[in-house]
């Protein structure tokens, strides 16, 4: 191994924007033509970005506690939302391996606001009722819908939106595969004003038992989070390179030409190398979600 030389600290200063303009120009010219230093520079930038995002996800808005009241804290030991999110990630991934983010993480990335879901927000509705998903295709469609609801419920819990929490937990309780821990969802619906930590712990408990097909469930969560990000003009959400993988998954789930067309429209609204087409992206995502969950 070589010893670190002056370049390492100069590269660090460049990454922090601390290098003077004329020196910066020289360094960039050298980097553009170099292999090793370029890789170190670009690689470190990527690592720092990933760690920043990780920290940001680990610091969700603080939520007020109800203190003592009608609700008794559950027996689940929860030291804070930071730990909880980490645990949720482990549980989610541990049950069904995947690199995709949990609904909670997606919700936070797409919609970090502490103000609750947008007032005009329309929660997805399944076109064929809440029961009776018997075929494989129906189960997948229902899983897409449930994934979307998990994102909305996560936001409702985080932002202390009691009415939405009750409504969404009730709808999920009625919709998820029977393998789910229905008691946990039922308790959320019954006690929507409980401390956010406790509700999140219950949601974790519920998700750990979800038997819905994992791929469609994750896709539904991503589509709903993407719809929220589009509503908020949140370009960062779409800048992580994961959209393409999800759209490929959506393409694989499309059962008819209209659904395939909806995938193409979303893809067109997310052109590579330029800003999302905000004028249509939210509507296109809504259409795709409806096609895949109906």
């Amino acid at each position, binding site marked *: 191994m070589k010893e670190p030389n002056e370049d390492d600290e100069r590269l660090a200063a460049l990454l922090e924007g601390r290098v003077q303009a004329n020196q910066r120009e020289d360094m960039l010219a050298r980097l553009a033509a170099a292999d090793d230093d370029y890789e*170190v520079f670009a690689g470190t*930038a990527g690592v720092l970005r990933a760690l920043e995002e990780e920290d940001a996800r680990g610091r969700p808005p603080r939520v007020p506690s109800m203190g003592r009241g009608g609700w008794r804290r559950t027996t689940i030991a929860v030291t804070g939302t930071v730990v909880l999110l980490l645990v949720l990630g482990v549980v989610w991934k541990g049950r069904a391996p995947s690199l995709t983010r949990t609904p909670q993480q997606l919700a936070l990335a797409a919609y970090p606001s502490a103000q609750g879901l947008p007032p005009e927000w329309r929660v997805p509705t399944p076109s064929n009722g809440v029961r009776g998903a018997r075929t494989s295709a129906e189960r997948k469609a229902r899983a897409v819908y449930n994934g979307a609801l998990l994102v909305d419920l996560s936001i409702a819990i985080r932002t202390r939106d009691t009415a939405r929490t009750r409504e969404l937990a009730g709808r999920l309780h009625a919709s998820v595969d029977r393998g789910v821990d229905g008691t946990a969802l039922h308790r959320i619906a019954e006690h929507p004003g409980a401390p956010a930590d406790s509700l999140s712990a219950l949601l974790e408990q519920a998700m750990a038992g979800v038997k819905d097909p994992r791929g469609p469930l994750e896709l539904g969560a991503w589509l709903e989070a993407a719809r929220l990000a589009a509503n908020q003009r949140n370009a960062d959400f779409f800048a992580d390179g994961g959209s393409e993988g999800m759209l490929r998954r959506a393409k694989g789930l499309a059962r008819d030409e209209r659904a395939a067309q909806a995938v193409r429209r979303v*893809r067109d609204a997310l052109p*590579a190398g330029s800003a999302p087409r905000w004028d249509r992206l939210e509507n296109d995502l809504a259409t795709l979600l409806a096609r895949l969950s109906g």
Partner: protein
Amino acid sequence: MHHPQNPENLFLEHLGWINRVAEKTCNQHGVWGPEAEDFAASIRLKLMEDDYAIIRNYRGESLLKTYLAVVVQRKFLDYWRGDRGRWRPSAMARRLGPPAPDLEALVYRDGFRLDQAGEMLRTSGRTGLSDRELGDLLKELPPREPRHREVSADELTETTEADDRADTRVTGAETRALRDQVTGALKRAMDRLGAEDQMIVRMHFVDGLTLADVARALKIEQKPLYRRVKRLRELLRGTMEAEGVHEEDVHDLMDRKEP
């Protein structure tokens, strides 16, 4: 040196950061589990060597955390190349996102068969995709020569349709030739750009980094970057077409693959 603090104390104070950076750096290059732990242990030893020489050499021109991140990244590249040779995920793999870079590394860098790579990715929690889905994903990646063991095209795609195999091999050879031609023209076109524009082109067009990442790395505003990239794209396209690179070839390199 700049810092009055005991380097050992600085090391201990930053140990958590060093571990996180080491893990993230490994993951970024498709290295997980015991191998990533081995590297983290080696970087800790390296930082302690010669009475914390690396930390003592820190002059304070940047934050210590950023300096350490750069050191870890460079040490990783030395460490990994010493073992496996130079490897970088393709632009397409980066653009497609997880698990494409890991899949590409396991198949083309480490020489595992598709089913072996799939099993490793699933058991380590890095994907939930089936072998067939991974096979479809692999077809979207540019073909590369396996590093450690000879792996035939049949092995790479043995769980996919047999009819696709011959086509894949032919397409692979053509694609390699095309890529060499296009990248050669791109390099010459880049020589005409300013330093920052060259970096933008290399990071975004060649390596597939998002504009958010490019803006963050170069400490420039993201919003004007969209227009700038559009201008650069047109400029490069014009220059390359003037060199005889066909428009569709340019699209293959620069544009997202259409469904």
